[in-house]
């Protein structure tokens, strides 16, 4: 689960990770109020969306007077911000962060994430702050410092020094930097983060270290033990159909094609999307009803896809394992009764209790096309839309 920069910085403050003074603003009036509270200029007006590259897209501006705050806040609020991470359609800006301007001496990069290969927390740092870290990694990998933390031991003093000296933090700021990094690690572990990125981390002209930006991603699987964080979810940043699907614990991602698909299991769902593409059509979504889906979940999966106007045909591909075919079939029948099916539906079903499942579908007398294998299903679904 991603959160906004202003929310991340509020959490940072609680963990004594220094950030500039600032406040969120949801209107021009609030922006002016926030700026007044900062007690001086310049201030920075920052668009709050769940995507990076906001500065380049025109969503971060410096204001040197209250008039400029008013003008800039008015411009940025309500703009559709397009960055390399939003896609061409961009994202509507509904929130701002108003922050005190800083005297920047150096821009650095600092992040923590879970390293899959070593099953540890890795700290990544670089003196090339403010740049896309992927570019730094590709062009000058020797400029990236990586320190792996044993999760059973926690972060050690020598590791803090390794990062600090690697970043060439001046002696006057070293103690403060070590505290910042140690606190950031505590924040990461205590909140089940999957990624924390500060780009840039700045060194000011008076030797202070501050997180000028803050990007935080939480492990969705761990949110059950962080009820306080759930309130930080911003539904405005998510696709409405995806929000609806998430209410029923369905793994759904809205895409731009016209062939809907419902599959059990993530791997098979991805492969089914690929097969739709191979057959000359384009998938309208990714929908994994999951291993242990109930009939109710299946019913809602159908409803969500059938409600999507761009979907012109639906491919159902079920290989029963945990999800028994009979349970799946009951969900299909319930969905058909409640929502009605008015587009071609191709069903391919195999695995646990497949005969009961097929019987339930046959007895319901629904207008479905059966496929005997995956290639057959791909051919039939492509024929339905082309």
């Amino acid at each position, binding site marked *: 689960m991603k959160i906004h920069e202003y929310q991340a910085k509020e959490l940072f403050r609680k963990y004594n990770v220094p950030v500039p003074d600032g406040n969120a603003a949801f209107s021009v009036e609030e922006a002016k109020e926030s700026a007044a509270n900062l007690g001086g200029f310049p201030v920075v007006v920052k668009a709050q969306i769940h995507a990076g590259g906001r500065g380049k897209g025109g969503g971060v501006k410096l204001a040197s007077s209250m008039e400029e705050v008013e003008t800039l806040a008015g411009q940025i609020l309500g703009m559709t911000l397009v960055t390399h991470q939003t896609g061409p359609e961009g994202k509507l800006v509904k929130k701002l962060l108003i922050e005190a301007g800083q005297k920047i001496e150096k821009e650095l990069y600092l992040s923590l994430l879970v390293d*899959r*290969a070593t099953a540890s927390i890795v700290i990544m740092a670089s003196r090339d702050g403010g740049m896309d870290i992927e570019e730094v990694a590709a062009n000058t990998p020797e400029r990236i410092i990586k320190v792996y933390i044993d*999760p059973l031991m926690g972060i050690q003093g020598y590791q803090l020094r390794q990062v600090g000296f690697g970043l060439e933090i001046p002696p006057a700021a070293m103690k403060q930097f070590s505290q910042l990094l140690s606190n950031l690690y505590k924040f990461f572990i205590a909140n089940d983060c999957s990624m924390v990125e500060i780009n840039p981390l700045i060194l000011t002209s008076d030797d202070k270290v501050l997180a000028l930006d803050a990007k935080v991603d939480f*492990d969705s699987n761990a949110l*059950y033990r962080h009820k306080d964080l759930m309130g930080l979810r911003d539904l405005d940043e998510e696709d409405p159909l995806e929000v609806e699907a998430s209410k029923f614990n369905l793994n759904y991602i809205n895409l731009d094609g016209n062939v809907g698909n419902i599959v059990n299991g993530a*791997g098979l769902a*991805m492969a089914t999307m690929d097969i739709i*593409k191979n057959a000359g059509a384009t998938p309208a979504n*990714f929908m994994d009803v999951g291993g242990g889906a109930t009939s109710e979940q299946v019913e809602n999966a159908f409803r969500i896809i059938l409600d999507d106007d761009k979907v012109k045909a639906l491919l159902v591909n079920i290989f029963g394992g945990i999800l028994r075919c009979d349970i799946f079939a009951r969900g299909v029948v319930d969905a058909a009764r409640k929502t009605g099916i008015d587009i071609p539906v191709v069903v391919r079903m*195999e695995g646990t209790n497949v005969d009961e499942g097929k019987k339930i579908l046959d007895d319901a007398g629904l207008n479905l096309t059966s496929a005997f294998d995956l290639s057959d299903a791909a051919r039939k679904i492509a024929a339905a839309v082309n």
Partner: protein
Amino acid sequence: MSIFINKDTKVLVQGITGNEGSFHTRQCIAYGTNIVAGVTPGKGGQKMDDVPVFNTVRQVVEETGATASLIFVPPPFGADAIMEAADAGVDLIVTITEGIPILDMVKVKNFLAAKNCRLIGPNCPGIITPDECKIGIMPGNIHKKGNIGVISRSGTLTYEVVDQLTKLGMGQSTCIGIGGDPVNGTNFIDVLEAFQNDDETTGIVMVGEIGGSAEEEAAMYIKENLTKPVVGFIAGLTAPPGRRMGHAGAIISGSSGTGAAKIAAFKDNGIHVCENLGQIGQVCKDVF
């Protein structure tokens, strides 16, 4: 021969009295798996059908000599269940549970490093040696005894592959789903090594997906160490970047973890690539 399990493997089930636990225990028993006991804390002394239930894994190991565990407990208790099994001396721990927090798994993996056991999963379908032993949730009837080793990050996608193999007459030595989580126990390379050393396995099918770099590492290992033919498939070529495709581990981060990079790594290292799932049985038939 087969890898990791055979008809003599004594299996216990953690979370045996739950809905999924009891359903799949019955399926495993019906397949012929030697399930000796179950564990549900607080329900020791009861029975699930004819299977005795204990409070702790240690009791089961002491009283029955079980060497493998199949775990169905809910995600908040997943890490604890794995550590309990490892601490009790279980050799093979198969974890079906999906949704264990990643930091829990990071800790578990480091905990297991000091133990002498193998974890398969979590978030996986398990392991099966056809006609001998099934420790998992895969439908047993699609499998057939034979000489192809199957290894995959997915569940249902593996069933699809196995089903095609069986229908074209190619049986399997052992099939393993290593799970779709970013941090898991057994990895591709562990299984590839075991298949290479298994006399009964003559060919290998490896099913990967987007996210991480396990497929690329496995491809390099294959070129250096394997003499047996390998067919590879990657799911998620049409997946958008930055989105988690159902599996916690299936995400393209920036430019890393793309399907195209994995397919290129397969091709560069002598793996026979199948790009259309509907054809994978046929490709295997041609190669093997």
